[in-house]
């Protein structure tokens, strides 16, 4: 598939759905990608299956504070520099890059970098949603080393980390981001195609593009169409009657309460977030939780709402959909399950709760 401006628009929408309230506003990433394909031509999206086992691919993302990213956005050539640094560290050529995280900004930004660098994007990512920390990836679970990690800024300062594990990479990248001025671009978990077949989620980008395409064809509330397409469940449709926020260890935590309207009159659903939406509760019972994806959609605009843009009075439909099956093993739940985020309950799949 060729990614032009149409596909980029759809991908931005779809990535916001999979982002589950996190990943930041895709707006800047979408503009960057649109301008890059206008200038350098469309980007080729290649199937993981079509590549040879031995080829090297580099998952990329931006990391840092959204407030900084809207003021000091990237130069545009970061992708090429990330690839060059990783190639030098590994002593071999990379064939393509991909998204490390399918959420918000990072869902679309790698398209801009690929267009600039003149290389393809592989149709896969490491989350099929958004997560707040670098070790929360399918690659990490598959035992693929996060290093070498290449972190670069707009000045072309580039640091390559060889870390002993992914939590160390998380710590070092965070302090680098501070020194670089609050945001940076990085390549992580460079892997062969053979590794990606077990350590990445294949087809996630094209799936997000298809989701965005369906959404763009529905005039208002797209949640029914999304639920049908993604085997999701409409948790409630109503009005946001309370939003509470607090800052906690560098994360934006909080919760929102939706008061049902129409056929949901009389029901209240509360959902809690830490950058991404983590859990939805009704009458004290969990009706969906991480790693399943919980997304609130503005019924008037049809667009998913990022957690920082939630506010009183919004009319929303809240949906929950199954995460990629990858996240449901006991090993996976040990790094992304509800208890990792401070909850006292165990994960139950959204299908078993509502099925």
């Amino acid at each position, binding site marked *: 598939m060729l990614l032009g401006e149409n596909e980029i628009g759809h991908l931005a929408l779809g990535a916001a759905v999979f982002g589950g309230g996190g990943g930041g506003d895709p707006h*800047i990433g979408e*503009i*960057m990608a649109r*301008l*890059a394909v206008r200038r350098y031509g469309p980007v080729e999206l290649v199937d993981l299956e079509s590549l040879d086992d031995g080829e090297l691919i580099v998952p990329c993302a931006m*990391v*840092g*504070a*959204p*407030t*900084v990213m*809207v*003021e*000091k*956005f*990237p*130069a*545009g*050539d970061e992708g090429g520099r990330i690839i060059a640094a990783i190639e030098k560290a590994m002593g071999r050529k990379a064939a393509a890059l991909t998204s490390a995280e399918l959420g918000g900004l990072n869902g679309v930004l790698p398209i*801009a970098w690929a267009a*600039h660098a003149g290389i393809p994007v592989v149709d896969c990512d490491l989350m099929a949603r958004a997560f707040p920390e670098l070790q929360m990836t399918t690659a990490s679970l598959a035992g693929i080393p996060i290093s070498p990690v290449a972190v670069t*800024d*707009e*000045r*072309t300062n580039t640091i390559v980390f060889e870390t002993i594990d992914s939590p160390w990479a998380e710590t070092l990248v*965070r302090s680098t*981001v*501070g020194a670089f*001025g*609050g945001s940076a671009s990085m390549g992580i978990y460079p892997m062969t195609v053979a590794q990606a077949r077990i350590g990445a989620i294949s087809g996630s980008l094209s799936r997000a593009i298809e989701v965005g395409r369906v959404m763009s064809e529905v005039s208002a509330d797209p949640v029914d169409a999304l639920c049908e397409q993604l085997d999701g469940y409409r948790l409630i449709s109503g*009005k946001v*009657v309370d939003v509470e926020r607090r*800052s906690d*260890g*560098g*994360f*934006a935590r909080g919760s929102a309460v939706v008061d049902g309207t129409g056929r949901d009159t009389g029901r209240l659903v509360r959902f809690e977030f830490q*950058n991404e939406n983590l859990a939805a509760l009704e009458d004290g019972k969990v009706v969906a939780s991480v790693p399943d994806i919980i997304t609130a959609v503005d019924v008037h605009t049809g667009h998913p709402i990022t957690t*920082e*843009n939630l*506010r*009183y*009075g*919004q*009319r929303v439909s809240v949906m929950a959909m199954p995460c990629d099956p990858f996240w449901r093993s006991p090993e996976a739940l040990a790094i992304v399950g509800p208890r990792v985020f401070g909850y006292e309950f165990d994960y139950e799949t959204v299908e078993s709760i509502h099925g």
Partner: protein
Amino acid sequence: MAEQDTLRLGIDVGGTNTDAVIVDADGKVVAKTKIPTTPDVTRGISEAIGVVLDAVDDKTRISRVMLGTTHATNAVIERRGLGRVACIRVGGPATHSIPPLAMWPDDLRSTVSVAETIIDGGAEFDGRDQVPLDEAALLAFLDGLDETPDSYAVTSVFAPVADIHERRVVELIREKMGASVTISASSHIGSLGLLERENATVLNSALTNVAHQIIDGLRNACAEHGLEARQLFAQNDGSLMSVDQVLAQPVLTIGSGPANSLRGASALSGLTDAIVVDVGGTSTDVAVIANGFPRESTVPVEIGGVETNFRMPDLLAIGLGGGSRVREGEGSVRVGPDSVGYRLDREALVFGGHTATFSDAAVRSGRAGFGSVAADGLSRDVATRALALADEMVADAIDRMKLSPEPIPVVLVGGGSVLLSDSISGASKVIRPEDADVANAIGAALAPISAQIDELFEVGVDGREAAVEAAKQKVMDLTVAQGADPEDVHVVAVEEMTLAYMKGDHLRIRAKAAGRLD
């Protein structure tokens, strides 16, 4: 003259009408008029001033004249009378992925832009230099201009936090191109969010000539009537600007119309916290007054196809107005969103026309009484159901704009307000102020002076509260510097946001203060 004897003259130039009022020190309307807006700025304003001045015995009692106008808005939308601008972004090597004006509509970009460049420089969020300022690149850009611009727009990365490079670029342009050239610097125009602030800065530069027209228009009109009052201008947050400020920041007059209307509704109703519902012929605007000011939109405001981030009232428009068509079908009744609009006085049933409208439903069911014939063509049952539906639409819009579930006073203004019920769901009371037809001009006449900041503050050893106090003091000082009475200046809004992904240390604070004119 004693303060209580002084009068204020407020004028609002809208797309259709120019309103003028004279109010006394208590805010009471002494005289008012409404005349059609004229293409020539001075003439319309002068005519309106002439009408209201007739009601005053001694025109030296008028101490201030305030003007709110749509001239700047129309200039951008119609791409008319705009100046040619050289756009300079100080942000390289970052930000090259989205060049200046890249997302502007082609026609506006070619009308406005002489040339665009990105030179190295700018700050980090904590005020450090991103890289040294590339002065040689700036001089090369200025040398290479093949047309002399009317003005220059300078936008530096993180200028709201640290504008050292932005100020240096302004200085260098003056050294090279002449001390009198017109320059807009972004830190005076907008808040964080580079693209939107840059867009607003470039529009600001392009509006320089329009600013002169507005100022000269008011000055000449005042001179014609021998008025020696101080002249002030309404801006988009419902407060006033001086002549010097309008010259420096004409873009801030965009959106002053709705802001004036809301401030006027607040003044007329005596309420500082309320929902204002403005019912027109085609649509109804619902907005919020909080602390006496229009609540501002949190999403970027688009003007003439360009995204900006300046302060605009948060308005929710619904497709319900006096001319909205009423239709019956399949056991249900619909109202709008299509409307007969300005043809209401010919097409509505009560004016002898053939189209059933919201106005007809209100007359038929006895809620309103106007028109020349009975609206018999509409059944009483359909009329009742249409009104119930319209009431629900209004209640729903009010509910969407409220910030909490508690009932709140609702102020009804606009020509179609007679069509609405006195009991609105979610409203603690419904107020229909007198003189609501000239609410815009009253809002301009009674507006205060204000200032606003949106900056990152360092959280030191004294903690978050000390940072917030520092922000409040800064914004109050700025307001006094603009001419507010130091005794009256007060903070009207503070909003703090932590920076996600950054551990502690910095807090983004938006704050606004206002005060009576000294």
